[in-house]
Each structure stands twice: as structure tokens, then as C-alpha cells.
């Protein structure tokens, strides 16, 4: 064990930092949250700049235009990225982290040709059509039906929690192709162009009151069979290839952001005045911030250790579930601290009196979704208990 960076790592960090220090300010300010066309343009424009500078697809194979960085370089990448306050991956999320990687592993040559580099260049936006109203934690119970009709699948159903569907070109879609077999069998993975007839996208406002998410209604949507990824009825296996990407280093950027947020909360606590005194003067609040700092640094180290071990074996040695579980619950604790530091300013969600009310309250509310999305805390504990500790399954 040697925590010192190698020369190559230092060089990597330096180059990235140097590029970001110019590129980030040059890209300007993000458009308003509700202006979807502008958000798409801004997010994909940034992605194209990343691509042109050689920083796109940090974990993707070079053969597919990616940077193919080592896991440690990826961590450095996320640190520097967060440090520079570089743009959130935004509308490129599904393509870069789910769709693209799945096609790399499972796609046909034609599918790879048609999508992969376009995703990397910011020319193709993807969304995810997995969850359904009655298939959340129990994803395998999904009901959206696809019936073969010659060289097409005719799809009917209702998807939910589809991020960025408003602006997506393609959807990675899970459908049931065999209703006779139960659950995990009988599912198929399809690439659905979002401009096909029969697709209706309705915004699904979150408790923020805004809509990154949508519901997607599918009414006799005809998807060519050539858009199938993997074999018919083998979609669950293909899906799990994707889900693995969702729980690995994908959170690294957000974790580093969380470290940064806690520092900002502490700084804010030192400013807020209470008839002349500061939130920071509350010894108990200070101690809790110290505690949170130990936990966030511990989490960051856990990620590093996990990656240090995985870099050799190619498989994360320590459950990504453990990281996800601790991270998401920690973010809620830090969110609570942020609200506490705001004091009565918490009654608003717009900035007032120089306090970053919007930012703090947005993140605190957003944290509530994190113990639910991408495998709830309850599902993570089940996975840890059964797959890592070997406890017997409950039904």
C-alpha cells in the first residue's frame, strides 16, 4: 500500500486540471432547469468539447473512442471534475453510463456503429425505460408487452421514472416478450427510437416541483427486431450488465460533490448570524459536522480501497451495494445538517440574505430520492446480506 501518486497519475491530474480550468469557465452558465432544449444543447455541447479534448468516456475502451483510464485515473478524474465544478453529465447520463456500455458488451456490430461514438460525441441522447408503475424494486415484474409481428415488435405499456425522455433520441427499453414464463425469464432489451409513432411522454414532477422525470406511454409502438440487444427473452441478463455500471464508480463524482458540499455547509455555519452569534458556535452542531466529515472521508477511502482492489481483478472486491447504501444515507444526514444550518431561512427555497438556500434545500430534498432510486436501501441490505454475507434468501 502506497498512497503517494505516481508520476503518471500526477501528470494525468495536472493535464486534466489544466484543461478544465479553461474549458469550464468558457462553457458558461447552465440554462434554467426547465428549459429542456437549452439544457440538451448545453449538456451535449459540453460533451462534444470533452470528446474533442480526449476526456470523454473516461472508462470506455479506446477502441470505442473512450479514454480507457485506469480506475485510479478515473477517481482522479472525478475529483478534478468536481473540484472544477464542471458540468453535471446531465442528459448524457443514460447513454454514457447505461446504454453505451451495454452496447459495447452486448450490441451487434451494426448497433455499435450506429450509436456508440455518437453517444460519446454528445450527438445522441438516451433515456431509460426500465421501471413501471407496478415494477419498482421488483423490476423483473414488468408488464410492458412486446409482440413479434414479422420484423417488428409491437410494444404496449407504461414506463415511469424516465429521466430526460423529453429530449432523448433513443430509449433503452425493457419489454416482456414471453408472458407465459415468470418474471426474470421472458424479458427483452430493445433500442427504441423516441420519434416512433405511439410514444407519449408526460412530465412527472418530483417534490421539487419540476420534471427531470417522465412517464412514457407506449401505444402499438413498432420497433424493428434489429434493435434488439441480446437474444429474445435474455433481457434480464443484459439488464444486469447495465445495472452493474450503475453501482460502480458512477457515484464517485457525486461523492466528491458531497465532500465539497459539507465543506460549504461548515463555511455557511460560520457565517449565519443569530442575533450576532453563528450556527458554528453551537458545539453540538460542530461535533456533528466533524462526525459527518469522518464519514464522508471514510466513504471516499472505501471507494478508493474498493477500486484499488478492483483495478487488479476487474471486479469490485467490496460490494458496490455497501458504498451505495452508506453514501445515500450519508447524503440525507448531510442534507439534514444543511437544513439545520439554514435555520429559519429554510422556509424558502430561493436564496435570501446571501445564504445559498436554493442550493442547500435542493440537495437536501434530492437526497430523499437516493435511498429509493437504483435499488432502495432495503434492496441494498438484502443484496449485502444474501450475496456477500451468504445469509439465506427470504421470499
Amino acid at each position: 500500500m502506497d498512497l503517494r501518486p505516481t508520476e503518471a497519475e500526477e501528470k494525468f491530474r495536472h493535464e486534466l486540471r489544466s484543461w478544465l480550468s479553461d474549458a469550464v469557465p468558457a462553457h458558461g452558465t447552465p440554462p434554467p432547469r426547465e428549459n429542456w432544449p437549452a439544457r440538451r444543447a448545453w449538456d451535449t455541447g459540453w460533451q462534444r468539447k470533452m470528446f474533442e479534448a480526449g476526456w470523454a468516456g473516461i472508462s470506455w475502451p479506446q477502441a470505442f473512442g473512450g479514454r480507457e483510464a485506469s480506475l485510479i485515473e478515473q477517481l482522479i478524474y472525478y475529483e478534478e471534475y468536481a473540484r472544477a465544478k464542471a458540468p453535471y453529465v446531465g442528459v448524457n447520463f443514460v447513454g454514457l453510463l447505461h446504454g453505451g456500455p451495454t452496447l459495447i458488451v452486448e450490441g451487434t456490430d451494426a448497433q455499435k456503429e450506429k450509436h456508440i461514438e455518437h453517444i460519446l460525441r454528445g450527438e445522441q441522447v438516451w433515456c431509460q425505460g426500465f421501471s413501471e408503475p407496478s415494477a419498482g424494486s421488483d423490476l423483473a415484474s414488468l408488464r410492458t408487452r412486446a409482440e413479434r409481428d414479422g420484423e417488428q415488435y409491437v410494444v404496449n405499456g407504461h414506463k415511469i421514472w424516465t429521466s430526460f425522455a423529453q429530449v432523448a433520441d433513443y430509449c433503452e427499453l425493457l419489454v416482456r416478450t414471453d408472458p407465459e414464463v415468470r418474471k426474470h425469464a421472458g424479458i427483452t432489451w430493445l433500442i427504441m427510437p423516441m420519434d416512433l409513432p405511439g410514444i407519449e411522454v408526460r412530465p412527472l414532477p418530483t417534490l421539487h416541483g419540476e420534471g427531470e422525470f417522465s412517464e412514457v406511454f407506449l401505444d402499438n409502438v413498432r420497433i424493428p427486431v434489429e434493435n434488439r440487444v441480446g437474444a429474445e427473452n435474455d433481457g434480464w441478463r443484459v439488464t444486469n450488465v447495465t445495472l452493474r455500471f450503475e453501482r460502480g464508480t458512477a457515484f464517485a463524482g457525486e461523492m466528491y460533490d458531497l465532500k465539497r458540499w459539507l465543506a460549504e455547509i461548515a463555511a455557511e455555519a460560520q457565517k449565519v448570524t443569530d442575533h450576532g452569534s453563528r450556527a458554528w458556535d453551537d458545539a453540538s452542531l460542530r461535533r456533528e459536522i466533524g462526525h459527518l466529515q469522518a464519514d464522508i472521508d471514510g466513504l471516499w477511502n472505501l471507494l478508493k480501497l474498493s477500486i484499488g482492489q478492483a483495478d487488479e481483478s476487474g471486479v469490485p472486491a467490496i460490494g458496490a451495494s455497501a458504498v451505495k447504501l452508506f453514501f445515500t444515507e450519508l447524503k440525507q444526514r448531510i442534507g439534514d445538517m444543511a437544513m439545520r444550518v439554514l435555520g429559519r431561512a429554510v422556509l424558502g427555497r430561493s436564496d435570501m440574505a446571501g445564504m445559498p438556500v436554493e442550493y442547500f434545500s435542493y440537495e437536501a430534498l434530492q437526497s430523499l430520492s437516493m435511498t429509493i432510486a437504483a435499488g432502495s436501501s432495503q434492496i441494498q441490505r438484502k443484496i449485502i446480506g444474501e450475496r456477500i454475507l451468504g445469509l439465506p434468501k427470504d421470499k
Partner: protein
Amino acid sequence: MAFKLSDEQLELQRGFRDFVAGRFPIEKLGQLADGAKDATLWGELAEMGVFSLRLAEARGGLGLFHVDAALIFEELGRALVPGPVVWTHLAAGLIDGAATGETVVTGLDLTTNRHTPFVIEHLEDAGAVLVLKNDGVWRVDPSTIEATTVDVPLDPLTPVHHASRLPDGERIADAQAADALGLLGATLSSALMLGIAEATSDMGVAYAKERQQFDKPIGTFQAIKHMLADTFVRQELARAAVYAAAGTLDHPEVGDVATAVAEAKLVAGESAMKNCRTCVQVHGGMGYTWEVPVHYFLKRTWILESTFGSVDEHADRIAATFGG
């Protein structure tokens, strides 16, 4: 000692719960958040005695007790009825028209909490602002306050303004009265949060019975069932603490009023907050939507918890009773 609701109180509670359920069903929350107005609600609340119920009959009230007020506010909390109900109740008897609902009164408790800037709820509708300070109760005319609307309030049903300075206004009662109103405000806020704790426990339980995953209602799973069991325990603990505080206000000789109230505010605050959080988690993704009303309860709780002394402030006060 009778630490139980009398038949009259049970009837009052049932009756008021029915009134609120009919007059302010849960769908109302979304409608008002979308901009609908309900011009007559305030008057109807006044008619039901929400503001005047503890005033003597000779003064137009019902001559009821703090416990009765707690029961009424528990129901207001359960349904999440909006408006400065606590402040207007505090103002009844002090400010003309408050008891009858003609004057909507909001306020600020400057004896607790961090207050820069001053964040005032429901200022637009208010005919008076009651300010509690360590030296007395002050009445401030809303039109004299240079206040800025907060574009996006946390709770869509609690519009807020902020102001960097506050005019003095007129001193209308002494320090002792300010103290008493602070205790009453904390008690009624606790009762609102008790109602929230109950509502969110009930909503979580109902959803867990109905929602199927893995071929059974999710309430079958221990992870969910045990979380909901904890919401019940916290709700009952909050009930005991809130009723005890109100009962002590009614008969101060039975205990230390300030401690009983601080304990109620602490326990009810924690209960409501944790129950709201459990309710979100049990609802899964739906709990994170705007459409499912769970979020209104959570947001209101954040506000109530930070008003009339936070959990932390009350824990400090209680600790101080040990001397040292």
C-alpha cells in the same frame, strides 16, 4: 388524575375531524399549490372556534381548555390546513378581529431561533404581525415592513417573505405574556406536528397494504413493517407529550409548564420528521413525486420544527432544568 380525554373531548375531536375531512380533503393540497384560492376557509375555521375556543364565553369564545385546543390543532395538522392558525389563535383576545377570523394574524417568535433575515409566513394575508420578544409582545403593522417575497417557498402552502429589518411597532403586552404566548405557540405547533405524525403513519400503512412488489403487499416485508411500527410508537409518544403539555398548561400546579412544553415540542418535532421520512421511503419513487401528497407534510414539518424553538433548542432548555 384523569389522563384521558373526556367524552366531551372525544366528541369535540371526532366532530372537528369530520369537519376538516369534509372541508379540506387531501386533494385540496394539490389544488391550492396549483394556485387555487379558498376564500371562505378562514372564516369557517373561525366559526368552528379554532381561534376563539379558549376565550371566555363572555368574550365570544367557547371557554375551553388548552387540551381542547391541542385536539383541534392535532386535526388541523392531520389535514395540513394552511394559514397562520397558530399565530391567529395566539392573537385572539389581544388583537381585535383575530378571534372572529376578520383579522388574519401572523407573527415572529424572536425569543428563539436564528432570525437574520426575518422570515415571515403568510405576510400577504396578514392584518397584523405579532412579535414575541424577551421584553414583551409587540404588534407590527404589515404595511410598515419592507419585505421581499421569497419566490419559491419550501412549502407551497406557506408563502414567506423576508425582511432584513423589522419596525418596532406597538408594545401590547409584557414579558410574561410573551413568555406565555411562546409556550402556547410551541404547544399548538406540537399538536400540529402530532397530527402530521399520525397522518404520515396512516398514509405509510395504507400504502404498504396496497402496494404489491415481489407478489405481496410490501407491508409484509419486515423492513417495511418494522419501520412503520416505529412510526406508530413515535406518534403515540408525541400524543402523550402533547396532551401532557396542554394538561399542564391547564393546571400548572401539576408540573413544570416550561419543561412539559419543551418536551412536547421536541418529541412531536422528532416524531413528525421521522414519520414523514419513513412515509417517503415506504412510498418509494411515488413518495418523491409532487402528485402524491407526502411531500407537503414533510415540508410543513421542516417549517414547524424551526418555529417556536427547534428540537435542539428545546433539548438545551430541558437540560438546563438539571441546573449545574
